[in-house]
């Protein structure tokens, strides 16, 4: 324990972490601006497209920087990212193919 206390306290290096915080905050603010600034009656799918892109950018920063996935080995990154890519494909496929799944047909 004595040698531990003799080590000088390292200075924290957190600039890049706070930068990500501001990026996430600004993106969320932009989402609000889009939610109330764009007419939903005419540009519904434009809005949804913007929301999805912003969500994926936010996910990239959280996973890459906060969860440090960006600084792991390549094999590690692909172990996690590859299944997620297939799951995203599944989500899109089911939603696109599911448009004939009408609830009213069951009544």
């Amino acid at each position, binding site marked *: 324990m004595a040698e*531990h206390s003799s080590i000088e*306290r*390292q200075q*924290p*290096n*957190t600039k890049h*972490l*706070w930068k*990500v*915080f501001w990026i*996430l*905050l600004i993106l*969320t603010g932009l*989402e*609000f601006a889009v*939610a*109330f600034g764009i*007419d*939903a*009656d005419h540009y519904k799918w434009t*809005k*949804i497209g913007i*929301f*999805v892109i*912003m*969500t994926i950018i*936010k*996910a990239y920063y*959280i*996973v890459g*920087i*906060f*969860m*440090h996935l960006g600084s*792991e*080995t390549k*094999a*590690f990154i692909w*172990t*996690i990212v590859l*299944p*997620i890519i297939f*799951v995203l494909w*599944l*989500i899109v496929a*089911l*939603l696109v193919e*599911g*448009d004939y*799944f*009408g*609830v*009213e047909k069951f009544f």
Partner: protein
Amino acid sequence: MAVEKTSINPPHLLWQGGTQPLKAGYGKLMMWIFLLSDVFTFSGFLVTYGMIRFGYPNFSEVVAGMTHKTFEFSQLYWPIPEKVFKAVPLLHGVDAPLIFVGIMTFILIFSSVTMVLAVEAGHRRDKADVEKWMLWTILGGFIFLSSQAWEWTHFIHGTEHGLTLADGTTIYGAKLGANEYGPPNFANLFFFITGFHGFHVFIGVLLNIMVFYNTTNGVYQKRGHYEMIEKVGLYWHFVDLVWVFVFTFFYLV
């Protein structure tokens, strides 16, 4: 470490140490694999939500000429979120669409930053800093859970005017059988998905308290590393990540 003679594996197949697979600790790797399985679960919810929501007609197809401004609740079509989530605590009757959920998002993003700062302090083996940032993270988790409790209460109690059905009865708020905002599935999916996420947050707060307790008692100081903070941090960030998706698909789209 000597290989035990009773092992059923021949010695050349046993991992003798050295560089770890994928250069990551076992616990950390397993936390990632667990989170991957959680991604599958939440993706299932997302697909369910999307398919059921798209199964209902758009409100403009049911009531000709209705726009987002003149929107009225009905059980025939899905509600638009800014008409449902527009209350803020202590501001009764004030129309503040999505403001409260925006505050909740900010709280969760902020607690994610304090968590990553705790992880960073752990890399420097700075016990005092880890304690400080873990406390902020725990506080953020508690505020988020309280906010969600308030939001659920408001959602269940509903508005003063409620929704009057064709047969003359009026329903207030949301129960599992029916709700005043839209089809029964709307409230059911809301309870199910935000509830499952809230349960994750609750578990996360418990884990955070556990590692805070261990840090204070010097467990990680003695162990020589703070990897446990990193593992719990991964879980906590994942909870934040899920909220980013819930926020988009439940409150914005």
